[in-house]
Each structure stands twice: as C-alpha cells, then as structure tokens.
C-alpha cells in the first residue's frame, strides 16, 4: 500500500475520446507488418489458376498432359477431377436463409464456364514462376455459348440460361412485404399507387449505377498446411475467418475442430471484398490435404479485378411523390440487380442487392412504399460485397429523386429533406427495417450550419450569369451500424454477436481475444482505449489477438461496422466484470465493504474514493489474483479473465449528411469538387482520428467510384478492366480533402458505450451528393444526372445537346 496524498485523475488520458495515434502503426511503418504474402512455410508449393477466356462456353476438353511434364510441376487439376473428392457449394452451414436460389459450384469450372476469368484448371509447382510457365502448357477446347450480359434481358423468358439446371435467370425476388399479411400488403401497394397517381408532385425517373467496387490494395491469398493430427491450418486474407472455417469443413467434409483459419495480423484492406467465400482457397486447402505439402496461392491483381469485389450495378425505375405541402407520401421502385454468376459462398450475391431495397427509404418518413427487386444472374463475376453493401445504387437513386422533387415543388432541397426526416424513434420503414434511435435533424443541421446555402445561391446566380456552372449537392444516409443476428442469419447464414475474451496477465498486461478479421480499422487502438477507460491502465498495456479460429469463439467477421457497434461494447462489458472481481478481492484484503463504484481505476492504480490510502497498482492486483489466489473472497477463484458477448438491438444505425460544392466546365465536361463537407452521427467517438480516417477514406472511395472506376464488360462479356491502368482508382491528385464534423451526434443508448459504427455506411451518401451537385450546377441547362459513372465525355455530350436544343428553341 502506497503513501497518502495520491491524486488520481478521474479520466484516463488515452481512454475514450482521445485522439490517440494508432498502436498498430509502428511495425507497419518500419516495414515489419505481417501480411499474408509475408508468410511462408517450408516445402510450400505454389498454385496458379488457368482462367476462362470466354464469358460463357462449354468446356469440350482440357488437355493437361504437356503441363504435367513441365519443370517443377507437382500437379495439374481440373474441375472434373474434383467432383468425386470434395463437395460443391452451397452447403447448409453458411448459406443465406433468404428465399433465393443457390447455384452449385466447385472451385474449378465443371462442364461450362460462366464468366471471363472463372478458374478452369490449376497448376501446383515448386515456384510461382514455374507454375505460370505450366499454365501455358494446358489446352482447353471451348464451345462458346451466347453471352448473357444485360440484366434486364437476362430476366426475359427467351434468355439463354446461366445456370442450366434453373428454369430462368432470376435468382431472387422480393417485394418487401415486411410483416404485412398478403392482403395487408396488397392494400399497402394499392395505397402507394393511389397516392402516386393523385399526388400534385411526382418524380418518375430511371437511374442506373455501374459495376464498381473496392479493390483492396492487397490481393487475396491462401496458404494451407495439412497435418494428420491437427487437420488443416489455413492462413488467408479474410474478414470472416470463422465463416470461412465452416465452409472449408463443409466442402472437405472435416469436423470444424480439424480446420483452423488465420487472418494474418495485418490485412491490406478488405472493404467487403474479403468477406465472401471464394473458390480458390477451397481448392488450396484440398490440394494441401491431397499432396501432403503446404500449398500457397497469392492472387494477381488481374485475377482480383476479374473475379472479386464487383458490386453496385443496378437499375432503378423510381417514382417519388409529395403532397402540396412538400410531405413525402409514397415511393415506388422497380429495382433490377445484376448478380453475375452468383457463385460466391457466404453471401450468394443476391442478399447484397436485397439490402439495397430494404434500406431504400433512407432517413425519410415515407408511409407507403411499393418496392420490388429482381436479381438476375449473368455471365459476369459474382456480385460481391463492397463497402456500403448494396445501398450505393439506392442512395444515388433516392437522393437524386429527392432533389428533383424539391425543385419541382420549388423548395430548397435541404429544406425539403428537413421536412421529411424521420423524427420519432424507434421507427419502422415500410420495408420492415427498423431504426432504434438517432437525431437526424440535429446532425443534418450541423452540416447546414457550415454550408451557407443562401450565400452559395447568390454566388451560383452570379456564376451562371457569367457562363460558369457552380453546384451544391446534399445527400444523407441512415446506415448500418452492426447488424443483429436475426437479420444476419437470414442474410449470411451466421449470427452477428460479438464475443471477446479479456485476459489479464500477472504483470497487468491485458490481452483481448476475438475472432474477426480486421484490415486496418484501428481496432487494436480503439480496443486499448476502451480497456484504458474501463480499467484505468495505459493503452500501451493492451494488445489484441485476433483473426485466429483457434484462439476465439465464433465471430461473424469484420463487416457491417460491427467494430464500434458490437466488439467495443463487449470489451467494455468484460472489463466491467473484471473490475467487480478486482474490487471484491481488494475490499476483502483490506477488510472493508465496498463495490466498484467506491473505487477509481486510473493511471494504472485502483484507489478508494474515500480513502486514498487504499491504493494498489493494477499490476500488483493482477499478480495477487492470478498468481497468489489464496485468501480470496468466498466464491471467487484465481485468475483474471473474462468473456463477454454483446449484440446490439435491432435497427442500430449511424447517420451521415454530406454536402458537395463543385464546378462543371461546360467546354470539356470536367468537374472539380471545390469543397466536400460531412456531418456524422458516430455516437460516442472512441478515437476521433480513426473516425475521421474512416470517413475521409470512405468518401474518397465513393468519389472514385462515381467518377473513375468501372468494371467494363464488352458485348461478348470480355472483361476489359483487368489492370489498374484500365480500372482507374483516384490518386491523391484526383480527390479533395474532406471537411468532417462529428460533434452533433447522439450517444447510442442501446450499448454500454454509446458508440456507433461508421465505416460501412459513410460511402453511401456520396453518389447522391455528387449527382445532386452536378445537376444543381447544370440547372439552367435542365440536365439531371441519372447514370453512373459520370465521366467528362458523357457530361460534355449532355451539356452540348442541351445547349443545342436551347439554341434551336430560341
């Protein structure tokens, strides 16, 4: 026991709210990160895939004889060889529960190929150089089949079939009946139609969004080792090691206990692209078991751009109606989404599009909605999760329609939004989705404060008179912040709770174990801050052990902004249990009656509030409880570790409002963003540096998607964008700095920390804000942005055509 006059701060300086530089940075900055491609094991072999050169073709024959004879080649495999050895996907354990069709597929194409880039054969060789050589020794004979590329045409009865065991190409359909009975739903639809028919103000417009996505800078990879006793150990790039484990077990017919999946400590970005169960790692695992040698696959960028991470292509035929006072009265939308071949374990493509329909009404009170989604399979790479899962298209369509409708009514779009926000919580959308809490107006008004709309309108008018085109666009998003198990089981076939174990060692160092697969979200730092806050120890004394199925219980993965929404609260809960135990022991030792509220945990000490003589270092107490568990309070045993599970209630959201100011040059159709501002409700912010990092990065991805990126398939289904020269990602010189505010949020009452997840959704308002701003700039020309991407040539053409029309008219 130490001396008196000890003053302890009530608040840990590196606790919740601190702008703490990240703990995980230093090794990365020194080049000592631990990424997938940095892992090597003795005697490892290398796999390379031969990929289809056709978008749709029957495989007539595959001749692997020459390749098998080439130097360093250990095995050459084809789909036909696999059918008797492993099971195909889907398997029950990780399949979506939604009523869609799940196509059957093996890691390598069997009988026919369904997209340009589908794996057809694989070579295993001593070095990757030799494996690539041997790919050239494989001869495949194809009989080309008609390319199914247009999602609407694919849904016509006359379309050729992508999956020939299906009667058509529709993988999923939903009308968002929610909890209504069939009769109630019919009445709901009828009322929506009536309101649209009778409303004084209606916008009816088709919107199209393009295929683009995320392309994490680190490609995918898997390294599998087989051991007769332990089974399979697989290091791989994945956001969801536990879900992957279940799929490996299913396909290879192994018990879960014989499969260990490890996400390396550092992962070079994921953004949803590493959340699916892909073909290639399944084959890598199988080969390691067959060949009894470690097998490694490191994806090339070309493979990545051809087969992973493609999202967002949807068509919306949307109608939005308002009454004479400017209240939204009904929404109708016919959505068609392109699922590619949908051969993707874990999500199966269509649940992604389904989320888009479910969340379509966004932050608005729209009492009646008639939304129908049809998802088509086509001869493209499977639709794959990407940040802003499923909603980027819908946000674009609705936020654009909101602006169009405002101008029709003659209202400033910001005012129209204010008038129609959901203001009472909990709220339920017509689609069935619930929002538990929030304050959209408060967060929105913070944005409006920084954006002097009246002054801008003056500037805009002045500019127009000089032939310059300035625009302001606003858009919002009520976005996911963790998903509850009820939704997640039906979407992904897995639960969504967070489960963490907190262990304190005898020196007072705290380790947190959990089973997600992060990729740069700063989780080690934010977790350390929560622990520092709760246990009053230095965040330096906290580390995480994450991404290993062997050291964690089931975890759904680093997806859907679960980190702040679920993982951090569960860490806090475990710490609070530990605190109780520490206080019990301490009170027992000094023979007082006390509970944890009587003690301050700060600066590495635990001190009695009323008696500063009762003061022990956290490390001393840890040592006492872990190593000297004698004379403990009745009922307590030794050791200082705790597991906690947390799942936020349904309908947890974060809310973001964006404003873009830009200028359009009519001479070339070029657009320059002058200012981009966001106001977000991130709840209680654990680390502002990290929250701002997420928003800055998410918005820039959204901008890059909007202007630059596109996966292009030609009219034969040839993928034309398989290099980073062709698939254009914004560089530092192509994007603005984002101005961010997160001081007008609301603590989330549904979890013990008040936090909200921000990462997933912050991209979603971007296309609406930009589309609205460009359309606003071009109002004198009557141009509405309805199709993405927005590229200078198309914008120029629209401007030119509009000017010519105007000239002819005058």
């Amino acid at each position, binding site marked *: 026991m130490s001396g008196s006059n000890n003053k302890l701060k009530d608040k840990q300086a590196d606790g919740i709210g601190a702008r703490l530089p990240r703990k995980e940075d230093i090794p990365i*900055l*020194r080049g000592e990160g631990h990424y997938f491609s940095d892992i090597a094991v003795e005697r490892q072999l290398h796999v390379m895939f031969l990929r289809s050169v056709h978008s749709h073709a029957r495989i007539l024959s595959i001749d692997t004889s020459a390749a098998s004879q080439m130097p360093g080649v250990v095995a050459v495999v084809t789909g036909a060889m696999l059918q008797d050895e492993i099971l195909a996907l889907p398997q029950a354990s990780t399949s979506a529960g939604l009523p869609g069709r799940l196509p059957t597929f093996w890691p390598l194409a069997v009988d026919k190929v369904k997209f340009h880039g589908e794996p057809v054969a694989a070579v295993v060789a001593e070095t990757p150089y030799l494996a690539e050589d041997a790919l050239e020794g494989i001869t495949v004979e194809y009989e080309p089949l008609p390319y199914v590329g247009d999602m609407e045409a694919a849904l016509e009865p006359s379309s050729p079939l992508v999956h020939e065991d299906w009667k058509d190409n529709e993988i999923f359909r939903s009308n968002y009946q929610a909890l209504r009975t069939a009769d109630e739903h019919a009445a709901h639809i009828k009322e929506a139609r009536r309101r649209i028919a009778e409303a004084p103000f209606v916008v009816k417009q088709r919107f199209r969004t393009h295929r683009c996505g995320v392309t994490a800078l680190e490609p995918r990879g898997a390294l599998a080792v087989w051991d007769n006793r332990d089974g399979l150990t697989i290091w791989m790039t994945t956001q969801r090691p536990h879900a992957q484990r279940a799929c490996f077990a299913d396909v290879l017919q192994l018990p879960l206990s014989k499969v260990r999946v490890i996400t390396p400590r550092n992962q070079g970005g994921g953004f949803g692209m590493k959340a699916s169960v892909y073909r290639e790692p399944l084959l890598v695992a199988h080969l390691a078991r067959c060949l009894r040698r470690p097998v490694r696959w490191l994806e090339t960028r070309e493979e990545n751009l051809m087969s992973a991470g493609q999202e967002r292509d949807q068509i919306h035929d949307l109608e939005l109606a308002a009454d004479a006072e400017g209240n939204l009265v009904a929404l109708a939308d016919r959505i068609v989404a392109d699922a590619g071949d949908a051969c993707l374990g874990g999500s199966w493509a269509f649940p992604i599009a389904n989320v888009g329909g479910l969340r379509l009404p966004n932050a608005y009170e729209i009492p009646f909605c008639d939304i129908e989604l049809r998802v088509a399979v086509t001869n493209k790479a499977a639709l794959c999760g990407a940040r802003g899962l499923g909603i980027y298209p819908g946000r674009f369509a609705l936020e654009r329609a909101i602006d169009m409708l405002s101008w029709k009514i003659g209202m400033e779009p910001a005012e129209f939004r204010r008038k129609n926000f959901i203001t009472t919580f909990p709220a339920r959308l017509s689609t069935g989705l619930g929002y538990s809490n929030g304050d959209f107006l408060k967060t929105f008004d913070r944005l409006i404060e920084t954006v002097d709309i009246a002054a801008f309108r003056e500037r805009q008018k002045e500019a127009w008179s000089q032939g310059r085109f300035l625009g302001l666009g606003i858009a919002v998003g009520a976005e996911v912040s963790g998903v509850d198990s009820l939704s997640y089981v039906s979407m992904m076939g897995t639960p969504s709770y967070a489960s963490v174990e907190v262990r304190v060692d005898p020196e007072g160092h705290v380790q947190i174990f959990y089973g997600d697969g992060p990729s740069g979200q700063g989780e080690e730092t934010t977790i350390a801050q929560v622990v520092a806050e709760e246990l009053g120890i230095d965040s330096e004394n906290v580390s995480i052990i994450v991404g290993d199925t062997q050291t964690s219980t089931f975890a759904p993965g680093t997806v859907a902004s679960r980190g702040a929404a679920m993982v951090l609260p569960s860490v806090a809960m475990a710490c609070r249990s530990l605190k109780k135990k520490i206080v019990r022991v301490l009170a027992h030792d000094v023979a007082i009656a006390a509970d944890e509220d009587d003690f301050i945990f700060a600066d590495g000490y635990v001190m009695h509030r009323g008696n500063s003589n009762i003061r022990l270092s956290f490390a001393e107490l840890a040592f006492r409880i872990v190593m000297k568990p004698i004379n403990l309070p009745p009922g307590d045993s030794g050791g200082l570790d705790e597991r906690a599970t947390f799942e936020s209630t349904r309908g947890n959201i974060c809310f973001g409002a964006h404003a873009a100011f830009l200028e359009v040059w009519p001479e070339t159709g070029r657009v320059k963003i002058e200012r981009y501002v966001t106001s977000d409700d991130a709840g209680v912010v654990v680390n502002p540096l990290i929250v701002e990092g997420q928003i800055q990065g998410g918005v820039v991805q959204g901008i890059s998607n909007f202007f630059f990126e596109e996966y292009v398939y030609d009219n034969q289904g040839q993928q034309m964008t398989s290099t980073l020269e062709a698939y254009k990602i914004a560089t530092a010189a192509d994007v603005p700095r984002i101005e961010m505010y997160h001081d007008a949020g609301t603590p989330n009452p549904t979890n013990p920390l008040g936090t909200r997840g921000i990462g997933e959704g912050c991209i979603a308002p971007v296309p609406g804000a930009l589309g609205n701003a460009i359309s606003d700039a071009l109002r004198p020309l009557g141009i509405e942005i309805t199709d993405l991407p927005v590229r200078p040539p198309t914008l120029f053409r629209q401007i030119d055509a509009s000017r010519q029309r105007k000239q002819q008219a005058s």
Partner: protein
Amino acid sequence: MKAEVSITINGIAYSRTIPIRMLLVDFIRYEAGLTGTHVGCTFEGVCGACTVHLDGDAIKACLMLAVQADGRSVTTVEGLAKGNELHPLQVAFNQHHALQCGFCTSGMLMSSLDLIEKNPELSEETVRHGLVGNICRCAGYANIVDAILDVAQERGS
C-alpha cells in the same frame, strides 16, 4: 538462365545466383527476406506499393529485373529508421493517422522521401501531384499529405 548478382540493400550486400527473370521486388522480398516492400498489381506497375530507392531515386521494384540492379544500391522501407530512431516521415505518418491497412504505406513512404528530398518547397498541390504513383485505398490521402507537409516544413525551418 541464371546469373550472379550482388545487390546492396540497406547497406548490406546480397550476393546470390538467381534466375535472370527474377523481378527485383522478388529478390528484395524472398532472397533478402525484406517483406516490407509490397506487390499490389500484376504487370502494370501502377499501384506503387513496391516503391524502393535505387541509388537514391524512387523506382518501382516490380518493373525491373533483379539482374538490372546488380552492383547497385537499394533502400527499402526497412532502411528508413536508424535503429530505434524512426525517420521523421514514419513519425509523422503515425501522428497524422496516414495509414489504415498499411499495405501502400511502404511505397508511400519511399515516394514521400523522394518527394521531400528533391523538392525544397512543397504545397498541398505539389504533394498530391507528387504521389500519383502510389494508390492508397483506405485513407483518402489527406492525412498522408498532411504528414508529408509537416516533415517538409520542419526540414525547411
């Protein structure tokens, strides 16, 4: 088919017999075991994650054969810090939260170093322009720009 090379990396000479076709980045990663230098594209050389310095100039190690660097001096991200003392850029990247996943970071640091060493005066615009050879997918660039400007400013003063 094979050739003998001696390449100095971060002051240490690595003498190896290697296939002529071996890329410099593979030599750095697998022969010298320095895995801080990353690979993010196939053959196009666009992502910049493999940026190292060759005799003091930032270059892409994926667009060179190792034999071309025979007798020359390479600096990788591992060569930035002097023992425990981090390079000011490394410190600034940490302070400004200039990295998230960190996969681009090695290349970004090596390009930044080239940028500040060769340009006495830098502005937000020149820094952004100077980084077009390095793609960052997470951070949205602004914090990277701030970190570089910080170091440049300190150097100038």
